[in-house]
């Protein structure tokens, strides 16, 4: 089980790259003033043109690019030392921030705007999954092996 959990950072890199792709696409449509391909699922343009889609003029999609880039970077860092306490918690903290804000945005979509942006939902699911798995790693990885495996070269 612990062995399996030490492979998680590689999955997080993959999830982060998918999220990064979505955020870059949404930011590109925002700045390019292009309609969002929504595949008939939800109302992407409506949601992304609402006043909740930006913070002080910065589109939320751009915040997403920053978040996912940080998640990918920290997952890569973690993958080099899968049992490193600090790297594990750094990723978990970032995932918690992302999932928390995504939860708020999902609430706004459902309760305030009465509309769903399918890309935002996929992103929220990615973040929730990342947080759940990172939390599992945090609880299940043995506390005794909190540092990196001893280096062979020493």
């Amino acid at each position, binding site marked *: 089980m*612990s062995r399996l959990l030490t492979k998680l950072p590689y999955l997080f890199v993959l999830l982060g790259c998918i999220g990064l792709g979505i955020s870059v696409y949404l930011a590109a449509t925002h700045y390019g003033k292009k309609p969002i391909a929504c595949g008939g699922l939800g109302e992407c343009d*409506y949601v992304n043109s609402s006043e909740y889609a*930006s913070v002080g003029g910065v589109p939320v999609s751009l915040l997403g690019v920053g978040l996912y880039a940080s998640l990918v970077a920290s997952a890569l860092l973690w993958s080099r030392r899968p049992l490193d306490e600090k790297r594990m918690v750094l990723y978990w903290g970032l995932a918690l921030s992302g999932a928390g804000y995504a939860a708020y945005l999902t609430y706004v979509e459902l309760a305030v705007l*009465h509309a769903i942006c399918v890309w935002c939902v996929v992103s929220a699911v990615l973040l929730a999954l990342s947080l759940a798995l990172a939390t599992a790693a945090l609880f299940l990885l*043995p506390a005794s092996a*909190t540092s990196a495996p001893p280096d062979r070269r020493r």
Partner: protein
Amino acid sequence: MKASRSGRASQANWRRGRSRRPAPPTDRRKLVVFAGIAAVLVVAGLIVLGGVLRKDDTVQFASPAEGFVLGSPDAPVLITAWEDFQCPVCKTANASVLKQIDAEYVSTGKVRIQFRQFPFLGDESAWAAEASQCAADQQMFWAYHDVLFNAQRAENSGAFSKTHLKHMAADVGLDTIAFETCFDEGRHRDSVQAEKSEGAKLGVAGTPTFFVDGQRVADWRDYAAFKTLIERALAKRDGS
């Protein structure tokens, strides 16, 4: 040599997934608490900042209204406002100049503002106009008017889809069954188009277009000039 043997042993222990050494004092719990608090602060900060920095262009009129007329029906001067709910400039006009006029002239009983429909920006403009007429049937035109302008987004982006218009009616507190019946059967479709044609005959080509006692306002953004027209109309009423 000794260190190397101990390193090999701990490597083997790690591979087995357990260590015979006593667990080193871990600060995991502290780290998690710290990261959790930081994450909560980041999320709360983003939510609060988003709310604080959202520009205040809320449309909300304080004066009492009757039908399509805001203000006292006995107010001597009439401002006619030809508008489209999808028109962003109309929203700006409502949130700025008309709000000022409301505070200065409408609330004091000198001026009344009559809303006229001029939906020309696409299907969603027409649907919003029809929906607002259905709200007027329930004496809630101005409340619905404010909600529509505050919900305005990019033109024909779905902000005024039929579903959203019905949600907004419920939010305002309209009788939703009566509203939906009125809206779905297109009870006001013809009257909205007739009103638009009437506007076109009067020379309305875009929105917002304002008239003060029948005299067209050349530049509504120039509040001083707008006020001069109102004052002149008031003086004329006083003189007559």
